């Protein structure tokens, strides 16, 4: 079901943990739908993401997308971190099964939430960053119709 890269990031997730006094922290998703991601960013004075850690409650894809997202944003400046979209995360993992695409959206949203927290705390505006939805699944449930 999962690609080798997804399995690798699930089995050996990169950057699991917390950052004390992080520059920005974002938590997205909800337990009702079975996935929550929390992203911690350590950002220096030049706006470069020096470190990134995550904690995730969720399925294999949720763990793998979180892990890959931390890898992709590390070392980038906050502006470039916005380029780490769900598509970028998915591509880096060689794809996800269709039912798991929302996990990659959650990873993108988690980065945005952490950046939003950082920007708010430091009075900075990051061009193109909009306030992330706290719950990625809002309004999604009614869409599925059986038969």
């Amino acid at each position, binding site marked *: 079901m999962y690609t080798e890269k997804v399995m690798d990031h*699930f089995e050996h997730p990169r950057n699991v943990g917390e950052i004390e006094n992080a520059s920005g922290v974002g938590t997205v998703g909800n337990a009702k739908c*079975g996935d929550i991601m929390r992203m911690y960013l350590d950002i220096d004075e030049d706006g470069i993401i020096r470190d990134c850690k995550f904690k995730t409650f969720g*399925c294999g*894809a949720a763990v793998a997308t979180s892990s890959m997202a931390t890898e992709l944003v590390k070392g980038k400046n906050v502006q470039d971190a916005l380029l780490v979209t769900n598509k970028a995360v998915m591509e880096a993992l060689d794809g996800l099964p269709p039912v798991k695409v929302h996990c990659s959206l959650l990873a993108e949203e988690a980065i945005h939430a952490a950046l939003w927290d950082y920007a708010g705390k430091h009075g900075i505006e990051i061009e193109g960053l909009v306030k992330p939805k706290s719950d990625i699944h809002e309004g999604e449930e009614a869409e599925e119709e059986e038969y």
Partner: protein
Amino acid sequence: MGKLIYLDNAATTKTAPEVVSEMLPYFTENYGNPSSIYSIGGTAKEAVTKVRERIASSLGAKNNEIYFTGGGSESDNWALIATAQAYEAKGKHIITSKIEHHAILHACSYLEKQGYEITYVDVDENGIVKLDELERAIRPDTVLISVMFANNEIGTIQPIKEIGAIAKARGVLFHTDAVQAYAHVPIDVDEMNIDMLSASGHKFHGPKGIGFLYIRTGIKIRSFIHGGQQERGRRAGTENVTGIVGMGKAVELSFSRMEESAAKQKELRDYLIKRIKEEVPYCRLNGDGVRRLPNNVNYSFQFIEGESLLIMLDMKGICASSGSACTSGSLDPSHVLLSIGLPHEIAHGSLRLTVSEENTIEEMDIVIDAIKEIVDKLRKMSPLYEDFIKKQGK
């Protein structure tokens, strides 16, 4: 990775070697159509008849009350939809429970779209159907009560005899989906007032794609597959002779050793339940402690998600299942776990282990060690656990 440890016997079982060897001659030599006149057709017909007799006697039923089907889901669909149609003149109301298998629930939603009314009776926190609620739900236009014998996820065994008595007293037909229970626990259709019963071969070491529906004599039920005169014209199509023969052998094996097999499974089950409870913090046993299938263990582990747990168990060669949404492809976790009152996040962290008599205590030890290690690893990764620990520290 070492030897495979298979703990998903509620999903399917290993076909017993005796079953396979019993089936083989019906592929290679006795392949004749049971409806044919020549001798190899006759041999096949005889074999089918023998299995029908064996199943009938295992339930205390008559031979002509057993109808072979393509499996549990077909039996459930047939029982519900064809009975509903046949008794339409009496009424269009059916009662079932909230924790049925999807073969029942989705057949019910199909019937709802056809203008039938379905009442879904609640269960208690152990998954036992509320009998007073069930009785109150009966109306003059109620034609059928369908309640599963035992639940596939949490293993809870329903008070079938009591439900049968209620149905009989109120003049309502009673169907039970016994897919998880048949050939595992004793069933007597007369003693329990069961009018229809579904079962499936591959849940007790028989082949897949074969099952049966017991229909009590006198019950009006429409043909489900229209065609030839097989199964007394009620379920047309050339008999799945190899499947029937295989299921027959599995019935023979299961009933000849039901007691000792159940005792062995209970030993493994109770060992798992006890050690997990003692050694894994923040867990909850789902289902009834006593009224429970001999093979079923179902635990929820707080702060973690089931699919992750399953993949990590699989990496260690352990086959299990979960009621997590991610394993079902939808956003909602198991309807059974929600119906017994579990919050969503606890339902997502469920693990079902279903043993067979072939498992060993040594395997259980390996599994318990694996669960402890994996649950610990996933909790260290979980923001819910982080929040919980921080809250406790305050």
